């Protein structure tokens, strides 16, 4: 038993030593928890700077007033174009939105005839298009009703008002979210690549076979890879979290760092086991590289770090309950944004641990088979 622990320690130490020799690799690790996070921070999905144009066939006070309601930072300055230009400019992708006020718009509004305003949306712009269409509708309705109220002087209070309180991120600054999710994604990428290729390199170079004639078991070899890579990624990710996310980007983080670190450890346990599994499934590095993409992309894209899981088909949501990334995204959001404690998070921790244990035993049996 003592000897097993010593072996695991020595073999793991070796992994870390040889990792440190690869300067470029070290630089990439540092990059993925510093500059990469900052880039993601800047790639926010906030609705802003939307390109908008207006076709004003009414040329009235009302249309002027409504047009003026589209303001920065949500919108770029409004361009006035002709009806004939709509198709061309939208094909070119110059505008995401083109609003058309028909002739006699103001007259019809004042006559309570409910005139039609056409909003053309470039649906290929995805989230900007969908979110923006909602904003535009709201701005149009409010501007028109303000105008009517001002000009008729009638005003009665609404039966009830709505107040929205966005918790944890009052301004809904998506940059916070993007930076932290990138952290989670890079942890996954790094853990899988490092463990997977560390094992495969040993097999390609013949050192694995040499280990197997020594008093070392496959279990020890595997655990040594897991702990060493876990440690490397933990240190890098926590440093990145503290120095880049907290200090440099100044993203307010709630919750306990210790609890988050614990969650990360469980997460890494699952991912490094997955890395070993993938290495056992592939015969050479090129295969491993492809396999990693194949596994990593769905794990990241469907985890809820890109779009909310609620928007995915139910079967995807069910399957993704078995993905470690789903639970880690929950842990990250729960602890770092919502400030949740262990009492709230323990079911997620438990699920993540069970997935990890499952992956570990699967990899172990695969690994044993592959060396026998």
């Amino acid at each position: 038993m003592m000897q097993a622990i010593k072996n695991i320690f020595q073999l793991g130490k070796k992994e870390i030593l040889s990792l440190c020799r690869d300067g470029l690799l070290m630089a990439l690790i540092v990059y993925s928890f510093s500059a990469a996070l900052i880039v993601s921070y800047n790639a926010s999905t906030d609705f802003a700077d939307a390109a908008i144009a207006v076709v004003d066939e009414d040329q009235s006070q009302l249309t002027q007033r409504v047009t003026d309601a589209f303001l920065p930072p949500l919108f770029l300055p409004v361009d006035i174009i002709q009806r004939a230009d709509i198709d061309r400019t939208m094909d070119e992708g110059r505008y995401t939105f083109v609003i058309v006020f028909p002739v006699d718009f103001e007259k019809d509004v004042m006559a309570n005839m409910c005139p039609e305003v056409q909003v053309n949306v470039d649906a290929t712009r995805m989230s900007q298009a969908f979110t923006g269409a909602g904003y535009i509708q709201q701005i149009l309705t409010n501007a028109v009703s303000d105008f009517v109220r001002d000009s008729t002087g009638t005003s009665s209070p609404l039966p009830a008002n709505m107040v929205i309180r966005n918790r944890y991120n009052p301004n809904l600054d998506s940059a916070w979210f993007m930076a932290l999710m990138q952290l989670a994604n890079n942890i996954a990428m790094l853990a899988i690549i490092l463990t997977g290729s560390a094992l495969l390199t040993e097999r390609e170079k013949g050192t694995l076979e040499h280990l197997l004639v020594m008093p070392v078991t496959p279990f020890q070899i595997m655990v040594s890879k897991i702990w060493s890579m876990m440690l490397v990624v933990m240190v890098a990710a926590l440093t990145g979290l503290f120095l880049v996310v907290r200090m440099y980007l100044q993203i307010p983080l709630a919750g306990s760092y210790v609890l988050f670190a614990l969650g990360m450890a469980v997460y890494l346990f699952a991912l490094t086991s997955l890395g070993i599994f993938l290495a056992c499934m592939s015969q050479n590095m090129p295969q491993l590289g492809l396999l990693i993409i194949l596994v990593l992309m769905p794990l990241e894209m469907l985890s809820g770090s890109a779009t909310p899981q609620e928007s995915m088909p139910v079967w995807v949501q069910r399957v993704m309950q078995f993905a470690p990334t789903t639970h880690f995204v929950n842990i990250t959001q729960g602890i770092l944004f919502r400030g949740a404690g262990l009492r709230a998070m323990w079911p997620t921790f438990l699920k993540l641990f069970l997935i990890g244990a499952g992956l570990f035993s699967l990899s172990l049996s695969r690994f044993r088979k592959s060396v026998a």
Partner: protein
Amino acid sequence: MSNSPSNEGVNIEPVVSFRNLALKYGKTLGLDHVTLDIPARKLIGMIGPDGVGKSTLLSLVTGAHAMQEGDLRVLGGDMRDRDHRNKVCPKIAYMPQGLGKNLYFTLTVEENLQFFARLFGHNAAERRRRIDRLTKSTGLYPFLDRPAGKLSGGMKQKLGLCCSLIHDPDLLVLDEPTTGVDPLARRQFWDLVDSIREAQENMSVIVATAYMDEAQRFDWLIAMNDGKILDTGAPAEILKKTGKDNLDDAFIELLPEEQRAGHKTLIVPPLKTTEADGYSIEAEGLTRRFGSFTAVDHVSFRIRKGEIFGFLGSNGCGKTTTMRMLTGLLPATEGVAKLFGKPIDGGSLETRKHLGYMTQLFSLYGDLTVRQNLVLYAHLYQIPEDEIPGRVDALLNRFQLKEIEEKLPNDLPLGLKQRLSLAAAVIHNPEIVILDEPTSGVDPVARDLFWELIIDLSRKDKVTIFITTHFMNEAARCDRISLMHSGRSLVCDTPANIVAQRNAATLEEAFIGCLEDADPESNKAATESCIQNEETPEEEPVQKGGFLGWLTSKFSFQRWYTCYWREQLELLRDPVRATLALFGALILMVVIGYGINMDVEDLSYAILDNDKTEKSTNYALNLSGSRYFVQHPDVKDHADLDRRMANGELSVVVEFPPKFGKDVDDGNSPEVAYWIDGANPSRASTINGYAGLVHSEWLKYLAQFSPDSNNAEQISVQTRYRYNPDVASLPAMVPATIPILLMMIPAILAALSVVREKEMGSITNLYVTPLTRTEFLLGKQFPYLIFSMLSAFLLIVMAVTIFDVPIKGSFLTLIVSLLVYCVVSTGFGLLASSVTRSQIAVIFLTMLATMLPSIQLCGLTNPVETQKGAALIIGKIYPTSHMLLISRGVFNKALGFADLHHEFMILVITVPIILGLGILFLKKQES
């Protein structure tokens, strides 16, 4: 060398001459200002201990390594001059050290030879003739269809030689070519070299070797030590100078005093064992089959405790397989093998503690220092902590590794690596030591040192030694030897008895006799081919002048095609990789297509009702009727809200204040509070929008009862979603997945191609053949390009059929843009491959450089223009952004080339930039 062309007295220019040539590896001086003229048309031998600069000198002579200090002229020109290097490259053949370093292991023998023959521009008939001639005379002919990786060590060496000889070089440089080659094959090998030299009088051959008996046949010897040249001259002269009767001793005599110190002629004390000692290793009818091929065929032996048992045989006869069975790495098909009287159990850790093993190929960690390696092995072999430093130091001293203890084995010559492996195999004082060609490539002094240790272990500590070797003087030191051939054991006796039985003068003669008896075919074939070796006129490549000549020297279609052909073969040999790349892309298209969806539904909400009147219940009813929301049990109070929102259960909570109903009726405008989980801002803003809708629905509902209120609709907003009228996510996502997938997958496929050659060693072929960097890279790119286009085509078909997203615009524009785009993405992989050295780093680099930008920064869900800082710059210049616009333009917007030419031109401009950088970062010489 009785038959070598004699040209003494003929005044010809030296083939190689250097003045003050020096080379440093970091701080270590590899070559210390040497000056020498090497005569042409001779067989030159280079001898010296391991790591004294022999390989360094050879790699400079062939142009594989960039020069640092001094002057070097090869074949009449300055090697600093790039034009001269390009000119003489085709005339120099170089076989690097190590087993099959310049070979491609997944390719067959035939394909390897074809590759080199094509590189040098021979036509099909000429290639056939040369390949047949070379393989027949080396005995490789029957194995033409076998992958090079499946050949035994010696056969790899032969194939390596054949590959270097395929183009009739003027200068043949062989770095330890016969290391690990059996005596019979070695004899054939040198016969082959002789016959080629006969046919080509102009050829000079420079060989570095550790076999002194080979050195005997050379015309001229260069003895090196410590980066300097000790002496030169014909073997006879050197013998005369040193006053010794064989080169082994003469060589030792040449060494400085301190290195010779302690060296003495080895005497093997007789083995004293009794029946009571029992047997350490027993094998009974041991058999191993791989499919229909029998590698080891009913081999039996019993080895006493303390015995030195030599295992000899031709290359590929099953020695290594037998050893692998003894170590438990490979289960036997039939028969039993016992260690210490117990059947071998692959899982027994106890047995392994008493076993030391050294593999044929270096299998320690190249990126740990010599010392770190030994310490690691000491730990793994469970040597007590406090004894480790002492033990390691003792071994470092014993194997003369002390000076290099802080160096990385990756930077060490073969001989020193072998010594390190040996040290690691005996670090735990094992009872049985199994050594697979431990002394191959090790210099004579170190070999004797090693044998001293072996004899010590055996006689003093009663350690059983099981050893394979190709050195006959080593075989003669064994207590007993077994001769193996084609999986069978031919004889098993003491060396003296074997010599006596065959009436042979030496053990080598006896050995070769045995082999020839067992397999008369092989030798006959060799002699035959030597006779057939008639001269054929060499087609002189037509020298083109002017611009065309310059162009063909920079880019040859033939060599490009050869590179492409080889890479393609390798890709096709690995169907798993091809399948993964093709079908992986399709699977990922489904994943992204369905996964990224802008409609958020089924959001969990709960009510915190402090009013509980008809009004609030009515409002709540409105919510539960919405398709966007799913109701969860009511929230009791704010603490409950905090908890359930923190653990992610609730996305939104609607709170009604006390007296809500009464205030509505009284016209007091009470406030309905929406508490929204803002952890995921994009989801939160969607909820914000939905909340507004729900609230205004409720207001409208109330307005029905008070017709005079001003809440009736004043305008009707008609939102027209262009290009995607159903506002479905799929039609917007599917065209976007094509550029993303065709960035990541081609890049990772191409990325490993160059680094793999760097790790495996076959990159030397780029250094020493006429291949230019452009031909090399573009040749490698082409198969991946074909593959990516195939993938692109499949993705388009899938988008149109399965996802039902029709192509509304110009298909031709799409496909041409994708072609240019795939050149960029594969080029991206090659660029990553050029700048990295390890496969891990390149996978990581490629993923970081493709996955993050293409998914996040290129306008997949949000236009690039809304990004800031570095994200904006990357998004603007990254090729995926432009391809995304083209793809969506053609699929969704019905656009053609005229509308998209701007994006297309940007892609076209990217091509030379990416490929140019890739070529720039790739080195044509090692440095």
